[in-house]
């Protein structure tokens, strides 16, 4: 039986299991911390930086998804500074690629859109980059639209940790980073892909979608991914 620890989140005492992340502990106790790259059951990578929280005793905020709980921790998830950071992150994500909700199949079922609404981001104060990015429709069932990708790496992790196919990875670096299948091949030609579609279900935006779905139909089932992860003993 793993050890239980007691910590304080937003002034409330909560119980957590040793080894659990602060984000999971908060979620288990009904607390909401904004996050985009996290999926329950998959490993935490701290890619989106939305779940930054203030921990008493540390000057800098830390990502809740990769910070393990400790006995006696005092955590603050809401503050003026944190909401400013979080809004800025959403604005940067929106300006980085071509996020045009009006023509997106995930409109209305998009975690980026929901998060922007929830955090009160109505526009981006940064100039849009408008990069020229391709759309990969070579796969018989799914489409990869790089314009809507936020590089959260959920697809990479679900493919590696649950399906075990390791089809996806992030290639290149910095502003040139992209998700790519195998040796940067068209998805339809990727020999390791099992066509299971878990990456599509895990994708928070319209970057990975099912072909032939209309706007209202393209609902992602992230919970299914989490359930599968729990079923195979993922505790993270």
């Amino acid at each position, binding site marked *: 039986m793993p050890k239980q620890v007691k910590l304080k989140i937003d002034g409330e005492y909560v119980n957590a299991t040793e080894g659990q992340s602060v984000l999971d502990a908060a979620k288990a106790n009904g607390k909401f911390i904004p996050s985009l790259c996290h999926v329950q059951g998959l490993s935490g990578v701290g890619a989106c930086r939305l779940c930054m929280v203030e921990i008493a005793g540390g000057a800098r905020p830390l990502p809740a998804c990769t910070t393990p709980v400790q006995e006696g921790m005092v955590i603050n998830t809401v503050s003026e500074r944190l909401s400013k950071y979080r809004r800025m992150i959403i604005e940067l994500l929106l300006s980085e690629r071509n996020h045009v909700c009006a023509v997106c199949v995930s409109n209305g079922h998009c975690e980026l859109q929901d998060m922007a609404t929830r955090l009160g981001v109505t526009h981006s104060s940064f100039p849009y980059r408008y990069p020229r990015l391709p759309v990969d429709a070579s796969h018989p069932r799914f489409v990869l639209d790089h314009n809507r990708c936020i590089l959260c790496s959920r697809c990479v992790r679900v493919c590696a940790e649950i399906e075990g196919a*390791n*089809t996806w*990875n*992030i*290639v290149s670096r910095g502003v040139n980073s992209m998700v790519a299948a195998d*040796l*940067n091949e068209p998805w339809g030609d990727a*020999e390791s892909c099992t066509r299971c579609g878990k990456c599509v279900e895990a994708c928070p935006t319209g970057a990975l979608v099912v072909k032939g779905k209309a706007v209202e139909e393209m609902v992602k089932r992230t919970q299914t991914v989490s359930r599968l992860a729990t079923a195979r003993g993922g505790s993270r």
Partner: protein
Amino acid sequence: MLDVKERPQTEVEDQAFIDGVIAEYAGKPGGILSILERVQERNRHKYLSKEVLRWVARKTGEPLSRIYSVATFYSFFNLEPQGDHTVCICRGTACHTRGSRDLLNNAKLILGIRQDPDGGADKLSLTTPDKKFTVRTVACFGQCALAPVVEVDREIFGRMNERELRKVIDRVDQKGTK
């Protein structure tokens, strides 16, 4: 399971070499880096072809996507054949203020390399069609007092200008293939 039909388009002894290197680093964390580095160094054009990457993936049991991710993350891995000579132009801040952008454009003009499509990209590796020269950029050589700095075939030249650059390139060109 991966089905690799094609063997690497290299000499037989090169395949044996790759297998040997892989055996040497078997089970060592971070071994992929060393394997790719040594395999690239062995190649005449100093690059990693897709066939070689496939072969390494198959032999090490690493996923193709991870090999490709590693090979694209580090700028020292080349996925395209490199020229016999390398002209490396520093695009660090100090060199930039001393005119390294013009120097880069001059190098491209001297070697007859067409401007890359997105023009402003500061990180690049361009090779002449005859595979004689490759022009690369680097973030900093750590010799900012000598700005602008250019490296030609691992020799550092400080306080460069167009005339000097032309001279150095001509000299290297005369020497022919290494």
